[in-house]
């Protein structure tokens, strides 16, 4: 994902801003974690695609 996507994304639960952590890749983020600045919920980025399903709908993919 492009970092600019952060401008329009938000936490699906409480609609607060997300912060990017552990980013691999430059402007084009390959993997990393999006963290809600309010509730702290963590959303994975895998193969460049952020998974922003609400946590109860997200089945963890084996590491």
């Amino acid at each position, binding site marked *: *994902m*492009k970092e*600019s*996507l952060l*401008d*329009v*994304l*938000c*936490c*699906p*639960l409480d*609609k607060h*801003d997300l912060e990017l952590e552990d980013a691999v890749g430059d402007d*084009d983020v390959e993997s990393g974690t999006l963290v809600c600045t309010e509730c702290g919920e963590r*959303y994975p980025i*895998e*193969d*460049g*695609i*952020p*998974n*922003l*399903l*609400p946590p109860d*709908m997200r*089945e963890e*993919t084996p590491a």
Partner: protein
Amino acid sequence: MSVRAEFDAWAADGRDRGMEDRHWATAKHALGRMPVEPGDVVLDLGCGSGYAGRAIRDTYDAGTVYGLDGAPKMAENAASYTDDPQVGYVVGDFGSLPFATDAIDHVWSMEAFYYAADPHETLREIARVLRPGGTFYCGVNFYEENVHSHEWQDRISVEMTRWDAGEYREAFRDAGLHVAEQDTIPDREVDIPDESAFPTDDWERREDMVERYREFGTLLTVGVAE
């Protein structure tokens, strides 16, 4: 079964591309009506292969197009079909959109809305992410008047919403979307064989197939955010 399980399987066996082929005949007419201006930000809900968003980006010189899908494999496939840096995909659910309030100029959704677990909540979410005056283009071929679609529910594990045209208009308004237009867009392209070919595997009677495609086609409802 979950949206993810059902549609990951579809993506894995190539049904994302199959739907693209079948939906294009009506989708292109609805896409052609959208008032997208250069630079606009567009969101494709339940993007499948992502063909619609990419067409919007190319045709209208849209600024950025995002495709959201609940099935990670759909989003992966969609991402693999383009390297346009102005197109992005996210995995997410119709029930709680991960987009900021007023962040989107136009929302598009083709043959996907009726899978929402709570369609009223999804409409409210769409109204929230759209800027005032932004449009929601919602195309559905599964709807009450299209009697030939009713049996589709039997073949899929995800529960589907079957509203009629009036229920769509009412639900849009309840969610804060002005209804600007409603139309059925016929599929004039699907090949309908001669009378002698009927019954086929899928159709008892030719007139039903004609009605399904040439008359009922896709129900388009266009909403405008307050």
